[in-house]
């Protein structure tokens, strides 16, 4: 019996994987490279996809996660090149994106991953729990805290602890 092709409809998958990667490493060439690498690996190991273990997007995000975790240390931050854009020159939509990505970049690695999976790749808490191999409840709590910290980064009052500054190399 023939298996279902996990990459049968690639376009939405590309968008979700890119959003996840970009929330983690910052929008730009690095995110594009990592997305390409993810799909190259996915094509190479397509036979390893098991529909019983989850949706194709979960499988792809698992690969993307390994690509992001396995990359070398970075010197520049997403927030740094986001600063380069002058608010007066770009449209409001672009400003909003940059502001959000800057705020996400201030979070620590774990929070950023959760935010990327939940709001970038649009996974449910349960799917994230399956992917990270933790309990759904733990993910929900961690996500709530991450959003609270992000609110803090936006300058809003929240009970969440202050945002930790992201390390320069990573």
């Amino acid at each position, binding site marked *: 019996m023939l298996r279902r*092709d996990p*990459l*049968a409809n*690639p*376009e939405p998958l*590309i*968008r979700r994987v*890119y*959003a996840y990667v*970009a*929330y983690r490493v910052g*929008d730009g060439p690095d*995110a*594009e490279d990592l*997305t*390409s690498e993810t*799909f*190259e690996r996915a*094509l190479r190991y397509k036979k390893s996809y098991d529909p019983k273990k989850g949706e194709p997007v979960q499988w792809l995000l698992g690969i993307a996660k390994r690509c992001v975790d396995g990359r070398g240390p970075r010197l520049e931050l997403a927030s740094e090149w986001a600063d380069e854009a002058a*608010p007066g020159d770009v449209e*409001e939509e672009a*400003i*909003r*994106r940059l*502001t*959000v*990505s800057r705020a*996400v970049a201030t979070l620590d690695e774990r929070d950023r991953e959760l*935010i990327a999976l939940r*709001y*970038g790749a*649009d996974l449910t808490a349960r799917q994230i729990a399956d992917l990270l191999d933790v309990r759904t409840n733990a993910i929900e709590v961690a996500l709530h805290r991450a*959003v609270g910290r*992000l*609110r803090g980064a*936006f300058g809003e009052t929240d009970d969440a602890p202050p945002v930790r500054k992201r390390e320069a190399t990573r």
Partner: protein
Amino acid sequence: MRYWRRRQEPFDLEAELRAARPEPSNELVRTLESRVRNDGRTRVGTLRVAFVGALTAVMLVALGSVGGVGYASSAAQDAAVSVKRVVQPKKVVRVLKKSPAIDQYGGKKKVKKKVKKAKKGKGAKGKVRARTRPPFTG
């Protein structure tokens, strides 16, 4: 900054995170999409060849089990002979009339009598007469 001024009113951070989700460039989407689709096409081609090969093997086994291979080979031989007959130039066919029936009843062989030429001279005439008539006894 307009964005920050606008954000003074309470806003839904989660909706904002979804709306401001980073988007890949169209070029990246096109490139990756074509890469994925081309890979799929190659695999489909390979699968087709494998399927045809497997089908042929199955058919050979099935036919072999009921003697179809021998039947097919003899049919092919017959066809080859027929083609050969049509294509090859015709030879003169020599029919041999030789059978037991012909030996027993049929063969009217014309036996040529050896007629000796009469020799010239008396002696020769006398001899001839003596052979054709009864001997003179007186």
